[in-house]
């Protein structure tokens, strides 16, 4: 387990910016979860995994492209997505990133470089080498790399290995980021694979790998930065396993009756936002007051986002058959 050596070297504004992003993600997700009772379609939230998204995105550039999956809100928000357009998408309205056609499960935002999101577990892994191949063959922005986010469950799908092998064999500029949140829908990781399986599997493919505390945004950033700059310099793939925890159910609403309370408590102790706050408070970079202000601004942002989404019209019936073909 790679634990961050970070102490005070980071510029203040970056850490605070990360905290703000993580708070935004959490607030957005909790808002959506609370909206369940009001008939909003179910979603897979990334509560507890905010440091993974924020830490990796901070290591990436605008020219880089990202693939993600069903649990994508954190990735999108960390990449700068508008909460209003995200909410509109979840609600199926025309101002959503996909015009309401996607709903929450496969949101792409090409303008942000978040492309080809698939909710088929492993779908993102199947397409990522192709995006990286296009990059390598001169189709992306110069110097760009490709990052694919996926879960520990996806690592059980054969496509995981096929993608790793192809990326290694074809020397693709591709960063594999496995957010190991211990859960695969309603099944615990330890019921489907040996302990430490993911990193052992990845290592078997002969690429450089790292396992990182996914609840420490600085650790994630540091490891991702190393991997990204290595990929930029030699165009070879890298693999990161971010150890984290899915704090809420698989898909809202979910009573988590099947979740071991001790394990959950253990991970709640290690909550990434709580830890970052503590660190920043300790270091004097943050005060309780500035934290409250930050939260209040975010709450207002989410309220505005909801108002935006509510005001967005439903798509026209003609959309049913628009965009079937290019």
């Amino acid at each position: 387990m790679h634990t961050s050596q970070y102490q005070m070297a980071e510029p203040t504004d970056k850490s605070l910016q990360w905290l703000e992003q993580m708070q935004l993600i959490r607030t957005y997700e909790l808002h959506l979860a609370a909206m369940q009772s009001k008939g909003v379609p179910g979603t897979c939230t990334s509560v507890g995994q905010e440091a993974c998204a924020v830490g990796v995105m901070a290591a990436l550039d605008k020219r880089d492209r990202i693939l993600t999956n069903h649990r994508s809100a954190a990735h999108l928000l960390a990449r700068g997505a508008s909460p209003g357009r995200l909410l509109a998408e979840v609600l199926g309205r025309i101002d959503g990133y996909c015009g309401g056609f996607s709903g929450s499960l496969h949101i792409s935002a090409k303008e942000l470089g978040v492309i080809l999101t698939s909710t088929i577990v492993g779908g993102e892994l199947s397409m990522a080498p192709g995006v990286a191949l296009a990059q390598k063959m001169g189709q992306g922005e110069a110097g760009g790399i490709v990052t694919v986010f996926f879960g520990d469950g996806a690592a059980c799908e054969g496509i995981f290995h096929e993608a790793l092998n192809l990326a290694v064999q074809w020397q693709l500029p591709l960063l594999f980021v496995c957010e190991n949140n211990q859960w695969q829908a309603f099944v615990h990781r330890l019921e489907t694979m040996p302990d430490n399986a993911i990193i052992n599997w990845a290592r078997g493919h002969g690429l450089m790998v790292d396992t990182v505390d996914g609840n420490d945004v600085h650790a994630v950033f540091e490891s991702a930065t190393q991997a990204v700059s290595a990929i930029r310099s030699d165009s070879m793939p890298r693999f990161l396993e971010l150890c984290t925890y899915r704090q809420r159910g698989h898909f809202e609403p979910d009573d988590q009756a099947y979740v071991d309370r001790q394990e959950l408590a253990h991970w709640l102790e290690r909550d990434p936002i709580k830890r970052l706050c503590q660190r920043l408070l300790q270091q004097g970079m943050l005060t309780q007051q500035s934290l409250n202000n930050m939260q209040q601004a975010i709450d207002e942002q989410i309220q505005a986002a909801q108002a935006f989404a509510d005001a967005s019209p439903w798509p026209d019936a003609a959309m049913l058959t628009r965009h079937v073909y290019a």
Partner: protein
Amino acid sequence: MEMMTVEQAIYQALAEEMQRDNRVIAMGEGIATKQLQLVEAFGKERVRNTPLAEAVVAGTAVGAAASGLRPVIDMLFAPFLSYAMDALVNSAGKLRQISGGQFEFPLVTLAMTGSGWCVGGQHNHNLEAAFVHMPGLKVLMPSTPADFKGLLKSAIRDNNPVLLFTDLGLLHSQGEVPRDTDYLVPLAKAAIRRIGTDVTLVSYAKTVAVCELAATQLAEQGIEAEVIDLRCLKPLDETTVLASVRKTGRLVCVHEASGLCGMAAELSALVAEKAFESLRAPVMRVTGADATPPASWMLEQVGVPSVQNIMGAVIDQVAIKTMPAAYRLS
């Protein structure tokens, strides 16, 4: 009789068959988490959570079926079957014939599909016709809790690979279900849900109820529609469909899946071949578009066959005055 949902009927059927025959096992991503009563009754050896690896889960079921077990696998949503195609199509569907009849594959695959949950086109994709097109498989898509129970039990006792699709919109719908642990609905037998004389509406799954509603409203306009619920898409109950069309002279086929090469096309072709002389009007299809199912609630609503669409098709048919060429010739 007992009131229960489709979901409950499915698990009652499974539990009864697991009780009856200890070769029946259940596998799926989360089945042992969500169906605790099955785990309690039959243990973790027979009720297995699986890794996220649909290809090997389906393949394992095929191998186990050929080797004396009778697996039931829960593949969750129909589009996830895309990972299980080799196991289901190339192995379960073909290896009996390829081997000259050496193996049997008593294997049931469960999958959900259909509109109603706003989950979008990678969870909601009605794939039943694609499987009807494949050799060696049987395909069920029932509409009532009782049929789910009776057909699933028959499927588990059948010695062939059977796919049972659950229309998402029906999962929590309620109905009376016989308590009988030997309550079997035969495969390949359609149900006539309403008797009529003017037009035959053939459907299955969620849209059967829509046809029944349409029939009620058509009756108010003096048009008596017969409503057939196929239940089992393969083997197809040709007899019931043909008998009805021979009586009514008109056929409207209704389903949520895309029309192109779908079940409605098959029914239309069947009737064109075998009951052409009975037809008083063009066979009509009321189906989903040749497009990806949307997530947006509003689009989901307008994308599926409605009472209005069905009534429109029937009224058009009844109004048709053009004489077919066969008339002009004679």
